[in-house]
C-alpha cells in the first residue's frame, strides 16, 4: 500500500552533549500508513518524535511533512498543521474533567480571544460524545482526568489526539501499564484510527505490535537497523543481536 509520502526524515542527527541520540536517521511514512517503531531503550524513538513535533531541533538533516519543512517550525505551528502526539508518560490535564480534556483538544480556533467567547455547538457535543464512546470513557466523562487509571489516561490521551483530527498521529508507548485486555482494545482502536490518518506507534510490547500487523522499523543507536514485516525483522540477525546482546 504505497501511497504518497506524508512524513519524510532525511539524514537527521541529534546530539546531546556529544552523545548522538539520532544518527543519520532516515524514515518515510505514507499518508494513511500505520508504522510501528521498535528498538531497545535509548534507541532514539522518543527523540525522533521530539524532532518531528518541534520539541528538539536536529543538528543536521531535513524533516518534512507534506510540503512543510518542520525543522523551521515550532511545536504550536507543527501541531496546527496536523501532527498530534501522545507522550510516553501519559500527559492529560489532571485537574480537568475527561470531557473538558477532549473539548480542549478539539479542533477549533486556537486564538486567545476566540477561547474567551467559545461555546460548544451541538455537533461538537456529539463529536465529543462519540469520542468518549470510542475510548470507553463514557461513564467517567465528568470525572477528573487525574482520577483515571493509568490505562484510562492513555486512552484519554489517544482520545485527545482524535479530537485534534490530525493527519499524522505520533503515539509513544500507548500500552505501557495496560492489562492484556486493555492492550488488545488499544490495538483495535489504533487500527481503527489508522483508517483515517497516518500513525506512527512506538512500543516495546511485541504482542501488541503483532496485533497491529503493520510495517515495522527497528531503531538502534539513533538509526534504522531494519525495516519490514514483524516476522522479517524478528528473524533479522542484526536485530536479534541488538536485542539479545544487551
Amino acid at each position, binding site marked *: 500500500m504505497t501511497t504518497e509520502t506524508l512524513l519524510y526524515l532525511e539524514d537527521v542527527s541529534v546530539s546531546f552533549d556529544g552523545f548522538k541520540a539520532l544518527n543519520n536517521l532516515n524514515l518515510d511514512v505514507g499518508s494513511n500508513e500505520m508504522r510501528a517503531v521498535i528498538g531497545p531503550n535509548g534507541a532514539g524513538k522518543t527523540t525522533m518524535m521530539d524532532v518531528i513535533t518541534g520539541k528538539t531541533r536536529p543538528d543536521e538533516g531535513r524533516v518534512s511533512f507534506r510540503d512543510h519543512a518542520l525543522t523551521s517550525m515550532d511545536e*504550536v505551528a507543527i501541531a496546527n498543521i496536523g501532527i498530534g502526539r501522545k*507522550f510516553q508518560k501519559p500527559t492529560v490535564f*489532571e*485537574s*480537568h474533567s475527561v470531557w473538558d480534556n477532549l*473539548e480542549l*483538544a478539539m479542533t477549533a480556533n486556537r*486564538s486567545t480571544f476566540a477561547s*474567551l467567547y467559545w461555546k460548544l455547538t451541538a455537533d461538537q457535543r456529539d463529536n465529543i460524545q462519540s469520542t468518549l464512546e470510542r475510548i470507553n470513557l463514557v461513564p467517567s466523562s465528568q470525572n477528573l482526568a487525574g482520577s483515571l487509571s493509568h490505562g484510562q489516561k492513555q486512552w484519554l490521551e489517544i482520545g485527545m489526539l482524535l479530537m*485534534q483530527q490530525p493527519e499524522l498521529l505520533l503515539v509513544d508507548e500507548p500500552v505501557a501499564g495496560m492489562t492484556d485486555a486493555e492492550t488488545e482494545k488499544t490495538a483495535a482502536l489504533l487500527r481503527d484510527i489508522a483508517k483515517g490518518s497516518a500513525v506512527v506507534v512506538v512500543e516495546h510490547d511485541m504482542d501488541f505490535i503483532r496485533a497491529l500487523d503493520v510495517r515495522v522499523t527497528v531503531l538502534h543507536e539513533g538509526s534504522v537497523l531494519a525495516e519490514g514485516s514483524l516476522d522479517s525483522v524478528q528473524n533479522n540477525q542484526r536485530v536479534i543481536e541488538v536485542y539479545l546482546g544487551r
Partner: protein
Amino acid sequence: MSAQSFMPLLGRAGFIFLALLTVVGIGVPTLNLFTTPGSLLHVPDYVVTLGGKYLCYALLALSVDLVWGYCGILSLGHGAFFALGGYAMGMYMMRQIGARGVYGNAELPDFMVFLNWKTLPWYWHGFEYFPFAILLVVLAPGVLAFVFGWFAFRSRVTGVYLSIITQAMTYALLLAFFRNDMGFGGNNGLTDFKDILGFPVQAAGTRAALFLLSALALGTCFIAARVIVNSKFGKIIIGIRDAESRTRFLGYRVEHFKLFIFVISAIMAGVAGALYVPQVGIINPSEFAPSNSIEAVIWAAFGGRGTLWGAALGAIVINAVKSYLTGALPNAWLFVLGGLAIVVTIYMPKGLAGLFAGWKTFPTMPKQAIDLGEAAE
C-alpha cells in the same frame, strides 16, 4: 443577569463572598456616616480607612491568584503594578493641590520647587485631568506587564526563574523611583494630598465613598476573573499550569495566553493601587519593595490559591492580624508572617478556602500543593 445564571458562574462560595462583600461595602460606609459616634452601631472613621485599605490588598491578592493559582505564573513582582497604579493616582492628586502647596506654586508640586525645577516634566502633563489619570492607572501597569511578559513568556522563562526576574523588575523600579531626578518625589514619594475630584480626601464622606468604590472594584474584578476562568480560556490556562507542553502540542500559543492573563492581572493590581493611595494618603518607592510582592503571594496562598475569593479573604485576614499585632506586639509580626507562610505551605495547601465546605466546586489544585516551579514538562 438572573440569580440562576450567576450561581454556576460564581460558585457557591463565590456567591457567598460577593454577598458578604455587598453587605460590607454598603454597610460600613452607611454605619459610619449615618449613625452618631458612640452609638452601638457606629463604625468609627479609622475602621473605614483601614477596611478600605484591606479591600485594596484583597484586590491585589486576587490579581496574584489569577496568574498564579490559575496559570502557574508565580509573580513576585505584582507590587510593582500596584505601585504604578498608585503613582498614577498620586500624580493626579498632586496636580490637584495646585497653589495650596507649601511653596504656593500653582504649576509645580512642592518637591519640584524644592529641587529648583522650573517647568513641569513632560510626563506630568495631562495628570491634571482625572480621566487621563485613570487611563494611566490602567496603561502604566498594563504596558509594563505586556512588555515584561512579551519577552519573558516568548523566551519561555518559567518557574523559579520567572519569579526571580519579577523580583528584579520591582526592585529595579524601587531604585528608579528612589531617585529625585526621576521626578516622582524620590524617597518621600507623593503626599500631602488635598482633594480628589473636588472632594477633600480627609473628609468622612470621601473616605466612605472610597471604601464603597474599593468594594465595588473588588467585586467587579472578582466577577470578571470568574468569567475568565470559567471560559474555555480559563480551562486553557489551567492546562498551561498543569501541563504546559501538552497545551503547546495541542496547538495553543502558550505565550499569548500567559501574556493576556498577566496583563489583565497587572491592571487589576494597578486599580487596587490607585484606590489605595487616596485612602492612605501617600505613595512612595517603598511600595515597590520586593517584600511587598512576596507578602501578596502569602496572602493568596493563605487564603487559598486558585479560588480567587480565598485569596481576597486571605489578604483581609492577614492584614487584620497584622494591624492588631503591630499595635500589640510590634516585634512579632515578621515572625508570625514567616511562620504562617511555612504552616500554609506544609499543612494548608488549600489555604483558608480548603477549610470551608464547598471548595470542591472549584478547579482542584494539582497534587503537589504549592510548588514554586511549573508542573513537570
